[in-house]
């Protein structure tokens, strides 16, 4: 905006000089009147630069920024409220299945031995609880563990 005012001032002096020479009237009068126009123009421009129309209403940038900040704060408050409601909802309605939570942090996980399953000749799927025998293509292929001959449900393909 400062640059605009500076250019307008230079323009004013140039135009004033030209007008004085052509019209041969007092240079002071011309400069004064052009300055008034320039200042009015710069005022209008600066007003335009810092404002915009929202739904037909002229709103300044400062007002928009304040509104934006208020919305941001409101948003954060709503998010916190949501979080609290979720926690309450889950605690009331959700119930907690017996799980492996509460296990302390274990060090050097790379060294934790993976349990080796004994070869019992039966394999039970962890998800479906279906039992397979070594003739089945699911034997030791599905995630599960070695089991006894009567654990879970027998597989329809291999008989379990």
């Amino acid at each position, binding site marked *: 905006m400062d640059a605009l005012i500076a250019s307008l001032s230079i323009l004013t002096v140039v135009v004033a000089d030209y007008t004085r020479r052509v019209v041969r009237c007092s240079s002071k009068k011309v400069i004064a009147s052009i300055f008034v126009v320039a200042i009015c123009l710069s005022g209008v421009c600066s007003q335009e630069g810092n404002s915009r129309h929202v739904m037909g209403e002229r709103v300044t940038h400062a007002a928009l920024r304040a509104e934006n900040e208020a919305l941001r704060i409101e948003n954060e408050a709503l*998010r916190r409220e*949501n979080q609290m409601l979720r926690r309450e909802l889950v*605690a009331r309605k959700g119930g907690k299945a017996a799980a*492996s939570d*509460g296990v302390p*942090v274990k060090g050097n996980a790379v060294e934790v031995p993976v349990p080796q399953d004994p070869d019992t000749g039966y394999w039970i*799927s*962890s998800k479906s609880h279906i039992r397979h025998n070594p003739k089945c293509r699911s034997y030791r292929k599905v*995630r599960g563990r070695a089991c006894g001959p009567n654990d879970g449900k027998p597989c329809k393909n291999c008989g379990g």
Partner: protein
Amino acid sequence: MRTWLVAFMVMLVACCVRGDVLFMTWNMKWFPSGRADLRSGDDEESATLTQAARIVAGAVADQTRRSSADIVMFAQEMRDAECCSNLVSAAGVKGLNVAAVSCFQDNSGVPLWQQVAIFTTLPVLRSGYAVWSNAEVSIPRGFAYALLDAGPNARIACFSIHLKSNFARDNTEFENQKNIHKREAAAAQILAVVRQLGEKYEDKKLQVVVGGDFNTNDDDLEYVSEATIRSFYGAHFRSCFRDLKKSQKITHPGTNGFPDATFDYILYRGFERIVSRKIYQGAPVSDHNLVTLRLR
């Protein structure tokens, strides 16, 4: 004598000037079988391993072409420690080792095939894993962590995570809110550990990086009320995708009517600036892309 002096000066400068660290995160989709709770044939799994190693090695080569960097990779949906070692060996990245692999189990004590891991070229001071611990609800899996030695008086605390998915058995709003709650609770647990570390290493420079599959984002309207990622921003973390447009951060390309999404993030704290960042296509190994972030 002069040669020795120059060599000494070079070594001194090398010790004082810390290099960049290249962070990567990749959900590798039930690696190496690509199928939930099911092994594939040996040949098939071996082919997947080769393809995955090529993608990892390619990304590292691309990101370190101009100058070298230390490497930290966060991996998710790994079957076990063995497949992590196989991947690191096959990738053949100099100095890259397995720092941590989780061993999460189901209720009957059988290890899950969705473990999380950290691989790095940096010296490991401490590493391990923990399950999510919550009083109200059980949350699947947990996090793997590694405290890395990044030079004199500098430590990088790394966390590899795979937060609860959006899968809802009966597709109710309650299930949906429960999933969001599980992710928020997990984020709170990580931030509590970060606070403890901050107190413990008060005298040292502690940088923190959390990478993984968050199963949420800060763009889509369905997560607008969710605080998971925003709680990290509240703790002065920054996102690897800061200032990027939605189309520039697709980590989970859309399929079967589901739109493109950003689920995989690297959140960091205590670094000077982002040097580079790039997403590499994860297909055909995974439905998630590989995210890389080079930090200084």
